[in-house]
């Protein structure tokens, strides 16, 4: 573990990403302390530029504090990102494990199914799903999960397929271990690194997706998310640039952080690749 941390810490970008991520999570956790009351409260005069009226990042068209919106928005964006990723992982790992471990027709069927989902333009499908099931945090999470599991399936399947033929798995089989035990104790733990890396990147993508949906007006109207902030600031961008610029930066930094952490994890969990990276 400490070796892993050392390797991770060697990647400067990853450390920056991790620090950023911790800040964002901290902001989400402490939003109620930093900004008591609701982010929807009209706290000041509308369209106050940053710094004025005691509003660090200005106010929006109803005089709501943009900074409070960003802090509470971190909650929504992170929850949506994390939960939808978890759901996608659940689907993806289950399908990928079955496909990779069983092989044969099950693999064939699952892979056709996965390819099918990869063919469908995912953003269009997400929009459709949210539109049809009316925008709410649940429908948004489901829609994002539904469009983001295929890569997980592919990765998990590939890992399982290669691990399945690894000698230690065969050895376990020869010892008479049950398939489920083999999957859970021998294969899955060794397939975790790419899944973890993928999960961090997927969370980033989910946050982007959520913001895109909110931007199109498909956000949950009771959830102050970053996408909602940009969407509501978009039409007043010339009047109040801060309304779209700051939430945009928040998304950018969070997504960037998740990507950097993902790359760091990938390097740290995959010493072979790290060496290659260093060699050049």
């Amino acid at each position, binding site marked *: 573990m400490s070796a892993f941390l050392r390797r991770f810490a060697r990647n400067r970008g990853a450390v920056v990403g991790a620090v950023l991520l911790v800040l964002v999570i901290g902001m989400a956790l402490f939003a109620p302390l930093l900004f008591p009351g609701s982010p929807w409260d009209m706290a000041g005069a509308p369209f106050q530029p940053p710094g004025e009226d005691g509003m660090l990042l200005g106010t929006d068209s109803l005089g709501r504090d943009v900074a409070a919106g960003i802090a509470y928005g971190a909650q929504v964006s992170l929850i949506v990102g994390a939960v939808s990723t978890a759901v996608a992982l659940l689907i993806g790992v289950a399908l990928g494990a079955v496909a990779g471990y069983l092989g044969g027709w099950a693999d064939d069927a699952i892979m056709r199914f996965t390819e099918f989902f990869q063919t469908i333009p995912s953003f269009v499908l997400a929009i459709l799903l949210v539109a049809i099931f009316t925008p709410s945090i649940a429908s948004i999470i489901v829609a994002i999960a539904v469009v983001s599991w295929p890569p997980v399936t592919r990765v998990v399947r590939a890992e399982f397929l290669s691990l399945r033929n690894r*000698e230690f798995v065969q*050895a376990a*089989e020869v*010892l*008479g271990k049950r398939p489920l035990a083999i999957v859970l104790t021998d294969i899955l733990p060794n397939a975790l690194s790419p899944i973890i890396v993928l999960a961090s990147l997927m969370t980033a993508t989910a946050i982007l997706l959520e913001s895109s949906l909110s931007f199109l007006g498909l956000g949950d109207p009771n959830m102050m998310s970053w996408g909602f902030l940009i969407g509501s600031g978009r039409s007043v961008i010339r009047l109040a640039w801060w309304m779209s610029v700051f939430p945009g930066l928040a998304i950018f930094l969070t997504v960037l952080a998740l990507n950097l952490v993902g790359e760091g994890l990938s390097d740290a969990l995959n010493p072979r690749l790290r060496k290659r990276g260093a060699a*050049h």
Partner: protein
Amino acid sequence: MSLLEVSGLTVALPPGGDRPNAVEGIDLTLDAGEILCVVGESGSGKSMTANATMRLLAPGLAVRSGSIRFDGRDLLRLPEEEMRRLRGARLAMIFQEPMTALNPLMRVGDQIAEALRVHGAGNDAARRVPELLEAVNLPDPRAIARSHPFRLSGGQRQRVMIAMALALEPALLIADEPTTALDVTTQKQILTLIREIQQRRGTGVMFITHDFGVVAEIADRVAVMQRGRIVEQGPAAQVLNRPEHPYTRALIAAVPQGHAAARPARSVSTETILQLSGVRKTYHRAGGWFGKGVAVPAVADADLVLHRGETLGVVGESGSGKSTLARCVIRLVTPEQGEILFGGTDLRPLSRNAWMPYRRQIQMVFQDPFASLNPRRTVGEAIAEGPITHGVPRDTALAKARELLSLVQLPPEAMNRYPHEFSGGQRQRIGIARALAMEPQLLIADEPVSALDVSVQAQVLALLTDLRERLGLTMLFITHDLRVAAEICDRVAVMQRGRIVEQGPTEQVFRSPRHPYTKALLDSVPGRGWVPPVAHGIDLAKSE
């Protein structure tokens, strides 16, 4: 003046390596028309020496001192462009992995022509390419030239590599383990080819290898490397037969004798423990959505008998079906036909559950010590896992695991450590302990030593021999290495393309092979004429 003079070559490793320098103070000379074998175990720095000569060291590795004089010029001080013009024209190199050494997207002929073109000899490429391919004994050179590499076999690709290396008749050819990835019959042909061409053209060859058999086959002179240094250097006959340095002696002693006759035949019971008859396994390559699948027979109508206490070797080249056969016996692969009688029961039709009792009785040791242990479980867990699965109480199983560790000569602290903390030979011992934890009657060993360096190989073989005697094990021993088979097997079965072409007592098969394939195999064993001097009393254990 020699063709190549390396003196005082030191290449630094990046900080954090196991030693400061990859190679240190290397002095070598090579004359035109001479083959110099640089021999050593993995990590000894032999490939590094070759790469340094070509100035193809991976970035991050730097020559710290020394010179490499070729034709009187120091290669290390040449400008990059001049060095490039020498490469391929005056200095050429071939590599170990023929499967990856050619650009997969380029036709073979184009790749050879490219070698000509970049040195300004592209005009007569159309004529030269088939000539070159013919010179390396490739059939239908024009067709081969039009092929992409993936259509060619490993041996054919290595010939292409040689044709490409020799396209501009270089004065120096560096061959970095060029036959290691090849089957023994192919290896024989390639070695012959290199020798022929070298003699015809007077090329100087620096030949990197780990295999003393190959050295005996091809070398004029030998340099032995250990941990980045040359420990002994001299004419082949002298180094092979009268090694002076203790390390050389130890290495040569570890080379399997390859002579069954050298060992007294063991007494074996006549009780049949395993009987295979008509076992057949065919692989079907999936044909995609609408394509037709392709059937590949891996094992065809194999018959075998194994007596209690006996070691039966299954030998053959890669793709001969020997591993599949072993996996059929232990139900890692389900054969579609035939009988597998174990103690009188046909194992083939048994369900997964019905097989469970036999899991205790038949166990397996795998080839790759790095892949055969779950990297995320401790050694103790790995060894105790089997018995626990079969209902042995955890404490008992762990206590047993500790005993087994000492049996395979590992310290008990190993219990709580993870596989990556061990060397290849140690891991193979752990694998053996894991198999023995089940107290099996039949042990299947699938190439258990082929991924190991020669000195480690000897130790593991010795361990297996010892355990066999002490535990009265019956073994099915799969190997491609005839020397190893001769060393350990009572009887051997020779497989070719899924069929057993010959079987019998080891001595009889090796001494008077009846099947032409067996003969060809035996003829191909490198250094067949060389008998390693027996050197008793050399302590090899330290080398791990």
